[in-house]
């Protein structure tokens, strides 16, 4: 099922890029095409990050274990659109003037935070292969890949800080992100509580045994 379905999901993930390309070809990107490309790629980074982050909660809540087999692909698509977004910025906004880019990154906090979010995705993309999971070991790999939380938060803040007055769209992303991260906090608290109880039961038994 997954093997058969996955190529279609892959193609669907390329849809936003295809749509942009088609519109550009037809001259339908409006008065300010570069702005449209920047905003559209930016939106899709956030969407793919949120989709990636929703896999674990969905899997746990619905018991649909096969979902995990899409997570890497969605995460890599978030990175893919982040690369496009970054290229749009460095090429069409800064025209490869690295000095100017660095001035921007160090001076403008919305760019600082956006750039940070992008840079944090790079090690995750590089270590996304099965080989790297094995090399790092499950625990370490998982710890490293929790960077996606930071990256997603940085992405939403980046959006929030760049709008002029209407924060309604960044608010929507922030809401979904806080639900997805909130789920993890709750899950962690529940797990810790259970472990403590288990530990105290063990300790009680040990006492009984000693006494």
């Amino acid at each position, binding site marked *: 099922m997954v093997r058969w379905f996955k190529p279609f999901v892959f193609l669907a993930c390329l849809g936003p890029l295809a749509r942009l390309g088609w519109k550009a070809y037809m001259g339908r990107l409006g008065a300010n095409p570069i702005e449209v490309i920047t905003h559209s790629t930016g939106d899709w980074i956030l969407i793919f990050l949120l989709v990636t982050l929703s896999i674990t909660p969905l899997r746990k809540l619905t018991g649909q274990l096969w979902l995990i087999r899409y997570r890497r692909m969605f995460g890599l698509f978030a990175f893919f659109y982040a690369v496009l977004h970054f290229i749009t910025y460095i090429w069409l906004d800064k025209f490869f003037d690295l000095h100017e880019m660095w001035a921007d990154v160090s001076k*403008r906090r919305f760019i600082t935070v956006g750039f940070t979010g992008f840079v944090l995705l790079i090690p995750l993309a590089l270590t996304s292969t099965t080989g790297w999971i094995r090399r790092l070991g499950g625990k370490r790999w998982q710890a490293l890949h929790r960077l996606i939380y930071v990256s997603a938060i940085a992405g939403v803040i980046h959006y929030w800080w760049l709008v002029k007055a209407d924060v309604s769209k960044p608010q929507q992303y922030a809401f979904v992100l806080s639900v997805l991260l909130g789920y993890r906090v709750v899950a962690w608290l529940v797990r810790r509580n259970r472990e403590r109880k288990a530990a105290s039961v063990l300790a009680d038994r040990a006492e009984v045994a000693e006494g």
Partner: protein
Amino acid sequence: MLIKKADDIPSSEITPKSLYLNRRKFLTGTAAAGVAAVAAGVGLHEIASPSSVAQADAKIDGIQKSPFSTTEVITPYKDVTNYNNYYEFSTDKYEPAGLAKNFKTRPWTVTIDGQVKKKQVLDVDTIIKMAAPEERIYRHRCVEGWSIVVPWVGFSLSELIKRADPLPKAKFVEFTTLFDMRQMPGQRSHVLEWPYVEGLRMDEAMHPLTLLCFGMYGEVLPNQDGAPLRMVIPWKYGFKSIKGIVRIRFVDSQPDNTWHISAPSEYGFYSNVNPHVDHPRWSQATERRLGEFRKRPTLMFNGYDQVASLYSGMDLKKNF
């Protein structure tokens, strides 16, 4: 057998070509008027009255050229009419063109009050006829970092101010946009303080470049571009050029303008185009002229150096 010859149709019954070509526009216009009339519950005679029909696309007669015009390439009409920062309709620049379609620009009155000899409420058509219309091809620089070149139609605001006869106490002019949530859906959300307010110092308002505008590209101003009456102050960021004006008030102290209220550290009262003073969040050194690939350097006062004397001795970093 009865075969009619072509000359059986009198020439008076042949539809003029221009009307024929416009039949769709006529039909949709009629349909829209019908729908609007039903919705508003007005009588049929009002539909027929030409003054209640939106006049966008109508040519303006007797437009004179102006020495203030630039010879730069004019931005295409479709860009200037489909890419609008008009938060009263939407915060999405591509939406006002559709949302403002049925905006009613007639009847329309403008209240002139405050520190003036005679307070009055003027019909917009009276104002438009105060002076001869001029075409002013101006550069227009948005605070967001894009720019356009637009052939506006209007006359210097000073023509109106002279006729309004302000008192010596009047030191500033305050403009207000229409507040009407039914017609302007963007006003239903609180992204900005409504109604939109802007202001100018009296000498800025009297400067010949300061344009009271009611048209562009030789035609009546489209709704999404600020019909029926707007300001155009070419050396200031676009948001100073307030749209849909219903009130012009002469005041003795500096008015608080909407964007300044929204973010005091980011938008000042003066908001002169200035490549040396960055917006706190982005650079103002360059701009993207719509239709151009590379960015171009932004000019001090948007290239209108003749206004520099208005600000001599002022710290423009402080008074941004």
